[in-house]
């Protein structure tokens, strides 16, 4: 691989895609995780748990959702053949994911504005929370299939069929991993959304359980990758950055659990977010320079230079508007728990 490739504009934009995906996981993912805990709300405080989740995600979920849109539009502007191939080979899981996205968002909103009667609320909660479980699994399946090397493209035509790429153990394992990851993030964040000690304990226990399950699943996904996503597996094993990345990711995961155990919730959140960032970055690095293993590379799928330059300009200008606005949103609604105490 040429060193030039590391610095080219298409690689920068591919990096923006990864960053947007990380934000989507950290913010939008946690909103799905909230829905998961809505489904599993139990005990004497089930109602309080649900209320806390609704208050936590209410003002922010629509903004958090836009990260996914950004990923999609940047992908089809900068790498049109990759978007076309993914849309074709993964039509089925993506269409199902869309059903989940639609039901999750609308049911959450309808619950707030429908008759405030227990049975009605319960019905919407069920739709909202089940969709919150299914959607991350399908997102994970999609990402797993992209990494698996089973989407084959020849001369811009998908040759691997409509089931081959995703109907396999590895993508499903990634789907489960994504679900537990989002649930873990949500539980960690939720410990900081309330001052009620009992509620904090509820979500602390959930975070610890999800964190341990996540570790086990990570191992499972890694072992399945050997056959399920050989190129990525080799990338993770061989590259010079692999060992430090593994060590650092593991350290963050362990620290998150320790902080939860010690009830240092703000630090637990930092570690959990770092852990997720490292996991996704590791995947991206292992897959580099491919957008879709093994037939669509960043350089070969890139749009003409003028398009990329204008897109990068738009992304920069957009970021200048976006980040202060996002900060304002989170400052208003999460201000009292944004800082590390």
């Amino acid at each position, binding site marked *: 691989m040429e060193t030039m490739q590391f610095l080219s504009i298409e690689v920068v934009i591919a990096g923006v895609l990864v960053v947007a995906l990380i934000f989507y996981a950290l913010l939008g993912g946690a909103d799905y995780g909230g829905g998961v805990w809505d489904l599993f709300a139990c005990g004497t405080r089930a109602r309080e748990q649900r209320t806390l989740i609704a208050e936590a995600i209410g003002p922010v979920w629509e903004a958090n959702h836009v990260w996914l849109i950004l990923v*999609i539009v940047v992908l089809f*502007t900068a790498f049109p053949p990759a*978007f076309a191939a*993914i849309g074709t080979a993964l039509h089925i899981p993506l269409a199902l994911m869309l059903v989940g996205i639609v039901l999750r968002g609308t049911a959450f909103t309808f619950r707030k504005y429908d008759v405030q009667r227990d049975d009605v609320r319960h019905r919407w909660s069920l739709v909202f929370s089940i969709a919150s479980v299914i959607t991350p699994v399908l997102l994970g399946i999609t990402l797993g299939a992209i990494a698996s090397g089973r989407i084959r493209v020849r001369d811009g035509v998908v040759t691997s069929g409509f089931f081959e790429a995703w109907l396999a153990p590895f993508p499903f394992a990634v789907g489960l991993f994504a679900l537990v990851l989002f649930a873990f993030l949500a539980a960690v964040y939720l410990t900081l959304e309330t001052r009620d000690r009992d509620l904090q304990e509820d979500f602390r226990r959930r975070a610890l359980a999800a964190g341990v399950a996540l570790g086990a699943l990570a191992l499972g996904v890694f072992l399945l990758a050997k056959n399920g996503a050989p190129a990525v597996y080799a990338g993770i094993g061989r590259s010079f950055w692999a060992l430090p990345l593994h060590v650092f990711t593991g350290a963050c995961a362990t620290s998150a659990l320790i902080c939860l155990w010690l009830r240092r919730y703000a630090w637990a959140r930092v570690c959990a977010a770092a852990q997720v960032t490292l996991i996704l970055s590791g995947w991206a690095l292992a897959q580099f320079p491919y957008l879709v293993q093994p037939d669509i590379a960043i350089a070969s799928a890139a749009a003409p230079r003028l398009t990329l330059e204008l897109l990068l300009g*738009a992304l920069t200008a957009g970021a200048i508007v976006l980040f202060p606005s996002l900060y*304002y949103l989170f400052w208003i609604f999460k201000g009292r728990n944004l800082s590390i105490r």
Partner: protein
Amino acid sequence: MDDLLAARSQMAMSLAFHIIFAAIGIALPLLMIIAEGQWLRTKKEVYLTLAKRWANGTAILFAVGAVSGTVLSFELGLLWPAFMGYAGAIIGMPFSLEGFAFFTEAIFLGVYLYGWERISSRAHLLAGAAVAASGALSGIFVVTANAWMNTPAGFRIVDGRPVDIDPIAAMMNPAAFTQNLHMTLAAYAATGFVVAGIHAFMLLRDRSNLFHRRAIAIALAVGGLTAILQPLSGDRLAKMVARNQPVKLAAFEGQFATVQGAPLRIGGIPDERAGVTRYAIEIPYGLSFFAYGDFHATVKGLKEFSRDEWPPVAIVHVAFQIMVACGFAMMAVAAWGAWRLGRSGAWLDSKPFLRALVAAAPLGFVAIEAGWVVTEVGRQPWIIYGVMRTADAVTPMPGLVAPFTTFTLLYLFLAVITVWLLLRQVAASPRKFKSAER
């Protein structure tokens, strides 16, 4: 149902559904902040109640609009991968900009809906203004991409592939400005009329309620003004279509033969086989004048083009007639309202006028749906006019009737629930604003 038809049906259904929410998402926040501005200025509680009601409506509609918009952005790839593979680099730019506009909209809507007690009233109003502005901007970016499909620009074709791609030139395509003007005005007019119509209905049953009077005044200020301007933008758009898509213009009018001094047809049913449009009222020289500003200009008829380049003429012609009829009816009601207002402050005491508002309530959205049939079906058989046929863009995925059915049922369910929730919001007519004050 073959796969191409299923894909087209799914796309059409998704767009027809989403456009209602998109249009209201553009205009309702404007009504909402006008009401809030009036509340801050006059401190009359009725305006605060109005702003909060409209905010609830915006919240419900935006949620449905956001997720159905997400579906569309994916469907571009799920249903038309060859189109996106070809056009992504040329016309992805406005979609990317739309992504940021959508971000701004979602962020400040969160601030607005949940921030009533948390930020200053001025900051709150500004957040609402940011929602209204970014909503309009979102719509403009998306329509710009659609305009490019009608009048593609910003590239050359060499060996069947696009080269010399210039995304800015693509965004500045000939249809962009007029199509955007037409659609943006339509969003305000349709939303203004539907809101005014609903409150007129309530006012007819609850004659002294100030709440509904104030609501109608704000809704008609926005909807009436834009309805009066709309025919002008329609005229510009028709002239643009005449220059750039003559076969589409011929389909609008059911004009089969090429003639000098072509008539403008009102109504009528085109017969593609016989190549004539029957039962229409014809205004001599009208089409030549409206399309080219010259009574004796030559209008190319459909017969000038090969049959495999014709859009489905009857559908396009009838949809065009419906759109224009709705537009003129709305303009007439708006003009009537302006005339009544000019004569006396008691302009909302007339039962016939309130009934006309009720009758006109759905017309804006009927016109929007018909207008999209005109522009989308009128572009067929092309997905990119003159460049790529729709049949060549569709995914190879078989069994597309399954997702079409799934999403249709899903959207029907959402439509029923949304209407029910909005009716709940509307039906709870606040009693406390009953007063003799006008």
